[in-house]
């Protein structure tokens, strides 16, 4: 097997191409397409987190939608409240017969609280959840199954609490963010630049992290958890920190996605979308940060193209993609490129 894990500093070629394309996009694309691209880039941030935990940590999470949803709902709560006249409550609550805002909605009126919640809540939930499982030395397939149960429980809970979460339809109809009108000219491209900047920051940060001793230890724990233990390290904190970082990235991703898409709903965060997130990374290449971004873009582009015209075809395609990539292309597209270069 060639080197699976080490980022190759001799060929930092793909990231620069992606960056150039990302910078050129606002000047070449229509507002509609730019919005679409921004959504996919937001998903790319989540995909980066999966490279960290799955590719380098050997931790398969089938529940990233939960953290994506926590970030998405946090910003949606804020936007719902921001657009509301004084003293009123969101219309869906009125329809469900509620008369007052739930107490946990109230702090989201503050932009600072909202941003803090987007950053902290998914991270904290991710850390506590993964610690509870990893510190008892449960991992691998067991962990993947538990994360899937988490995705199911979370999305079911949101659907069933129609009166405070918007239920199956989710939350939508947003008009402004932090005082800026979403429909006003220039907002779309400004949000695009914000997304691109965050994506770049996440990329650079993870690249550094993976090259650091932390990254080495994470890969070491993936390949030989007991060997690491018998060298005097406790593998649990490395795995928990990696999982928490991936959860944070998923939360940021969800918040940005909700901004661009104008909606957050259980259909975007449940069991099926959560596992679809893994396929982005599987296709792009689970060991490669740039590959994961490309994977997120490609799969979502394909989904957009195929699923609107032939929705039933998309599921067949998705299923076939899972089987194909995992059996024949375990290193994804990134592996293909590296294979040719070598």
């Amino acid at each position, binding site marked *: 097997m060639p080197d699976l894990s080490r980022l190759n500093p001799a060929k930092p070629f793909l990231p620069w191409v992606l960056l150039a394309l990302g910078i050129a996009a606002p000047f070449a694309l229509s507002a509609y397409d730019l919005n679409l691209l921004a959504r996919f880039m937001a998903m790319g941030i989540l995909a980066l987190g999966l490279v960290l935990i*799955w590719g380098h940590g050997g931790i*398969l999470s089938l529940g990233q939608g939960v953290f994506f949803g926590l970030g998405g709902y946090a910003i949606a709560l804020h936007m719902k409240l921001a657009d509301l006249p004084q003293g009123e409550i969101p219309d869906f609550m009125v329809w469900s017969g509620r008369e007052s805002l739930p107490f946990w909605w109230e702090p989201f009126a503050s932009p600072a609280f909202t941003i803090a919640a987007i950053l902290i809540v998914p991270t904290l939930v991710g850390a506590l959840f993964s610690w509870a499982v990893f510190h008892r030395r*449960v991992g691998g397939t067991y962990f993947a199954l*538990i994360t899937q149960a988490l995705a199911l429980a979370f999305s079911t*809970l949101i659907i069933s609490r129609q009166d405070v979460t918007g239920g199956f339809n989710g939350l939508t109809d947003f008009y402004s963010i932090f005082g800026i009108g979403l429909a006003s000219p220039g907002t779309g491209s400004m949000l695009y630049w914000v997304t691109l900047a965050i994506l770049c920051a996440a990329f650079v940060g993870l690249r550094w992290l993976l090259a650091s001793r932390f990254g080495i230890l994470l890969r070491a724990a993936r390949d030989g958890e007991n060997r690491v233990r018998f060298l005097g390290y406790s593998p649990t904190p490395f795995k928990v920190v990696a999982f928490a970082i991936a959860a944070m990235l998923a939360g940021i991703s969800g918040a940005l996605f909700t901004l661009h898409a104008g909606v957050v709903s259980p259909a975007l965060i449940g069991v099926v979308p959560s596992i679809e997130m893994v396929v982005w990374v599987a296709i792009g290449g689970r060991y490669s940060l740039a590959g994961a971004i490309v994977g997120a873009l490609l799969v979502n582009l394909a989904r957009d193209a195929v699923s609107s015209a032939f929705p039933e075809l998309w*599921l067949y395609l998705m299923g076939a*993609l*899972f*089987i194909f990539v*995992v059996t024949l292309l375990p290193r994804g597209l990134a592996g293909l490129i590296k294979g040719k270069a070598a």
Partner: protein
Amino acid sequence: MDALFLNQLFNGASLASLYLLAALGLALSFGLMRVINMAHGEMLMLGGYLAWMTLLVVPGALGIVLAIPVAFIGAAAMGGLIQSTLIRRLSARPLDTLLATWGVSLILQQAARDLFGAIGVEVRAPDWLTGSFMIAGVTLPSARLFIILIAALVLGGLALLLLKTRIGLLVRAVNQDRMMASAVGIDVKRVDFTVFCLGSGVAGLAGVMLALLGPVTPNVGQSYIIPAFLVVVMGGLGSIVGTTASAIILGLFAALAQIFVDVSVAQMLLLVFVILFIQVRPQGVIAVKSRQLDA
């Protein structure tokens, strides 16, 4: 309150039976191969549709009796196909197996949607299954009683098979030490295949039971398979006793929790319960002591 409690206890028992039927195959092949088939839920679905088709051809009680072997064989064949074409190739990569078999699950669900429609089909159960008993002021639907009975029979049959037959001996040998079993000339791959077919067949039976409870839809398996996964997590590696105990615990827990909270909260509590259980017994209900450590 008392009647409600007894009623939920009974519901819990039938839920536990379904969890058990769905989880037995998963646990058996996980014990042997350390892989989980994410398309296992679709074996339930397949069993349900096969039961529906059987009852279309042969209505009545005879239909139900016939549906059981039909569903078993159909699901076993599908399981065998998945095992021999896909899972065997990925046996050393358990996480990749999860993903590849999830792909199979998506394809099977969509195929069912295209073939039978998204709404689902209703099985017309014979009258003796649609009735109910009254015991101590509690209504016990016959269908649920039937499910508990079938689960008990399947469990008994499996126990006999594993403890008393040559196949069972081989399975236990491979379960205990794969390398050694292979070294003494046991055809490990055939044991894997047989167990996989058997487990899928049992899931097919669970599908027949689901068909008796409600409509068979393309994603009918999904609502039972995730609790079944939790049963496997809690049961302990490849142990039938552990799987049975954890299916009973989780089935009762889910049903009794619904006395106090609604279904969705009960689902969350189920997960919390499993995570708390891991804190106490990470090795599962039944721990198999092993000298091999590194996975």
